């Protein structure tokens, strides 16, 4: 997908439109070749007002693989070319863009008056800006009248975010020296999650711009990087047009809330990896197709790929080695490898999440090792036959849960330990599936699902229910993305990034187009995108339930939420077109989860009823200090003088916000255990 021929000329601020690039912006053709950045751009504040600008100078999204340069560092699991930047940074909070320190990114800017702040983290939880919880309403409800670009209504306004008197900005500065191993190498900066729009500079040079808070944003910084005394400046805006697409029912935060890392490339590097294992049911054999995109000193040397059994979860690389040389290819920009696994393979599923491991080695022309890329994957087959979903030939039953990433201490910036606790809790309670509601999660979570046999519904970062669902009613007089051309590229880019980053995870059985965003042409194209790129997985979307016009073109499953059992019967008794899934059911607010049997019975009654995802895993509430006792207490919407709010509506977990199981969990464990 890289465009190597048509570079945008240096300092060109208004690139011409190129029609052949589908997923980049119309007005700012800013895509560049990964390692040939020979131009500089100026940042433009107006990008936050423009839904067509969401990705400036970003590298192509790619597989989330790790890489190593020596056998020793590989065995130790230590990528020496990686430099984490997490830690204490400097920050300046401004109430709006006009009050922000505009030249803070320039070299020599005195940031001594900036505050110290921990990265990653939400700025609200660091004491800047008000904590606010709200469900479907846009967070500016009752404060600003806004209508999205392109809707043709009176409320549309230029500068609605850049000129708003309330739209906070976090101006971050991070000073660092480069680790020795990274010096002189092609290097990128990788932001795993920044909410909600971000401009990046390094040593005074504009690096790029990104939206899509929940997927990685990566920029090539080679040209701007120094050995010592680097100044990274990141300007994060709380709201932008992306806010229309990120109206998830959660606490509304901003800031750099996931890790920031530098990645240097060895002289040849696997930029992207796509492993497509196929499980052949008829004889339990497996084949694997692998596509590699390489960068750096390609054209010489060679690629070797091995697949071995990595055995049970947690097995080390040495365990149960059944190595097979599957390929030895000359290095080229793109390398395709296909192989047939010897003998039978063990399929991956919830009962036995059996993983194989591929090791890809790049060698230079002299035969010296340049890079090792390992990746663990499983053989499994998800398919639809006679309107029923089967996994490895068995009818799929989803005993699932929706999961927000949540910590009562740190919000959506959760620790590895918290993620591990969640996985342990999910396993222990017989839950076999997770929907990443309603955004891509930390990369770590996808690996955990692979290792633990958890069926994933990997959701795109999209939720716009404030635009068409008002006071519980379907009211799409205006809605995004709908059919509005201005919004299409942004949502397609979100789908693309979700796919490209996570495509190798065996646990993903479903791509989900997002949550509660109604249905229109943009959504239809997202469906088509996933299906075209990845026909081996199922595409899910619930938003056709309120808009049946898209029933035949969006979502391969009939997905509904909170349908009472009778409504499911009604669908399945009347010439159903698709298998039925409840993407959300059993609303676990407070003392709830009564009547689960009526749903579980449907699994016995209807082959085409395939289960669902409970709402949801963990209460979203925050620890605060009680004004009266001085003790720690859990607080929810409205407890921060935040209005309007939906108050305790964020507390619907199977576990409390402090990760203690709710009493209802024994019921979940019982029924999910019966139908596992």
């Amino acid at each position, binding site marked *: 997908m890289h465009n190597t021929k048509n570079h945008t000329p240096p300092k060109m601020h208004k690139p011409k439109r190129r029609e052949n690039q589908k997923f980049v912006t119309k007005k700012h053709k800013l895509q560049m070749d990964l390692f040939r950045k020979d131009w500089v751009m100026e940042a433009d504040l107006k990008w936050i007002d423009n839904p067509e600008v969401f990705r400036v100078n970003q590298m192509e999204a790619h597989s989330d693989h790790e890489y190593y340069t020596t056998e020793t560092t590989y065995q130790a699991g230590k990528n020496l070319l990686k430099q984490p930047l997490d830690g204490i940074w400097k920050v300046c909070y401004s109430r709006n863009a006009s009050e922000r320190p505009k030249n803070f990114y320039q070299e020599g800017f005195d940031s001594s008056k900036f505050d110290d702040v921990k990265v990653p983290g939400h700025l609200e939880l660091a004491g800047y800006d008000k904590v606010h919880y709200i469900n479907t309403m846009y967070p500016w409800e009752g404060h600003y009248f806004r209508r999205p670009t392109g809707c043709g209504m009176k409320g549309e306004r230029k500068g609605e975010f850049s000129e708003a008197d309330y739209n906070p900005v976090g101006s971050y500065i991070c000073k660092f020296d480069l680790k020795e191993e990274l010096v002189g190498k092609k290097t990128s900066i990788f932001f795993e999650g920044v909410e909600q729009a971000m401009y990046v500079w390094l040593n005074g040079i504009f690096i790029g711009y990104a939206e899509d808070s929940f997927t990685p944003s990566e920029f090539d910084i080679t040209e701007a990087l120094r050995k010592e005394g680097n100044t990274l400046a990141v300007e994060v805006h709380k709201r932008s047009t992306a806010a229309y697409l990120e109206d998830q029912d959660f606490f509304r935060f901003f800031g750099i809330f996931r890790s920031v890392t530098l990645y240097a490339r060895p002289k040849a590097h696997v930029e992207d990896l796509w492993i497509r294992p196929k499980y052949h049911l008829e004889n339990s054999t497996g084949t694997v197709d692998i596509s590699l995109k390489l960068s750096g000193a390609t054209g010489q040397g060679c690629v070797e790929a091995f697949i071995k059994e990595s055995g049970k979860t947690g097995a080390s690389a040495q365990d149960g080695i059944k190595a097979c040389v599957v390929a030895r290819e000359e290095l080229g920009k793109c390398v395709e490898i296909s192989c047939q696994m010897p003998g039978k393979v063990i399929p991956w599923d919830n009962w036995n999440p059996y993983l194989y491991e591929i090791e890809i080695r790049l060698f230079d022309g002299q035969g010296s090792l340049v890079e090792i890329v390992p990746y663990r994957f499983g053989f499994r087959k998800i398919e639809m036959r006679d309107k029923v979903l089967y996994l490895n030939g068995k009818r799929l039953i989803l005993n699932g849960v929706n999961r927000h990433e949540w910590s009562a201490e740190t919000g959506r910036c959760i620790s590895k330990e918290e993620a591990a606790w969640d996985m342990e809790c999910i396993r222990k309670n017989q839950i076999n599936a997770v929907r990443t509601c309603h955004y891509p999660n930390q990369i770590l979570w996808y690996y955990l699902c692979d290792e633990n046999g958890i069926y994933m519904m990997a959701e795109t970062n999209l939720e716009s229910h404030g635009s068409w669902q008002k006071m519980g009613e379907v009211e799409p007089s205006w809605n995004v993305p709908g059919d509005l051309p201005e919004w299409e590229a942004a949502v397609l880019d979100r789908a693309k990034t979700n796919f490209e980053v996570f495509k190798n995870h065996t646990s993903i059985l479903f791509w989900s187009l997002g949550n509660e965003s109604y249905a229109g042409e943009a959504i239809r194209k997202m469906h088509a995108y996933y299906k075209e790129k990845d026909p081996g997985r199922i595409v899910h979307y619930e938003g056709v339930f309120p808009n049946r016009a898209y029933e035949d073109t969006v979502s391969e499953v009939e997905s509904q939420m*909170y349908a009472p059992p009778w409504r499911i019967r009604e669908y399945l008794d009347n010439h159903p077109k698709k298998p039925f899934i409840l993407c959300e059911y059993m*609303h676990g607010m407070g003392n*709830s989860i009564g*009547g689960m*049997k009526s749903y579980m019975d449907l699994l016995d009654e209807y082959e085409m009823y395939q289960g669902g995802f409970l709402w949801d895993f963990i209460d979203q509430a925050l620890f605060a200090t009680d004004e009266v006792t001085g003790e720690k207490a*859990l607080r929810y919407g409205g407890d921060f003088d935040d209005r309007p709010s939906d108050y305790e509506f964020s507390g619907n977990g199977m576990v409390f916000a402090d990760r203690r199981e*709710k*009493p209802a969990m024994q019921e*979940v464990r019982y029924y999910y255990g019966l139908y596992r």
Partner: protein
Amino acid sequence: MGFTGKIADYLQLVYGDVTLGVAGEGFHCIFSYQTGGLESLCVKGKEWLYRTPKPTFWRALTDNDRGCGFHLKSGMWMSADLYMDCVEIEVEVDGQKIPLPKAPENNRFGAKEYAEKLAVTFHYETITVPKTEVAVTYEVIPSGKIIVTAEYKGKEGLPSLPQFGMRFIMPTKAVGYIYEGLSGETYPDRKAGGETGIYQMEGLPVTPYLCPQDCGMHMDTKWLEIERESVLDNTWTGKERFSLKIESVGDSFAFNCLPYTAQELESATHQEELPPARRTVLCVLGAVRGVGGIDSWGTDIEEAYRIDAQKDIRFSFAIRMS
């Protein structure tokens, strides 16, 4: 009648002007014509009642109750739970109904009155529209047992009930309780995962739902033993624990045992707003509304788990005082 046999086979009755006392080996109870119920339940010298127990109809709304507008339809049960009139009291001694022995009717009795069996029935009238009646009978047996029977009279036009049973408020907070029944917090529509066994609870745990609400229910219980170690009696300085046992009579019962009433729970928007825990509030229930879960914004719980207020409800349990 005169005392002829072993003391354990007989109850001693004290026909007071305002109350009816009844004593057996190790226990002493007082039924009050003034407060309209069992005013005192004293076992081995320890008082178990803070206020006269009454029928209970209301529970602190769950999020799902609120979401489906249950309170808008059934809210009158809250006031019915708080305020009720005792309209009639009946006393039966050894199976014979006697005229209510309050003053001056009681002047015909003396200091030594005994019986083999005493039954006192309190008739309550609810303040619902329309009104209905609840009768609560305490049948005292010399071996040290009170069989409590609560009868709700169904009435056409009354909205669905949150719960029905008896609420006991004890003077001090219990240190814990033991019960034989289902594990965990269970409700009629959420008990399949509960495992039968004997469970010991430390303290009176309030399930820390984000918003305090009805919680801690235990369905299908055979017996329950509440343990305390403190009293309000200024003469007592002991430290040993003492307990009271509730047993099923025929059918099992449901209960929750919390340090708060439904009103206290419902008045708090956060756990930390709940007042310091000072009492034990035990609800022994014959009917419990399910918690539901289809959604939290409109759909009522499944019909099978609602309590039809148009139908009679009758259930019994026993208080063991020996």
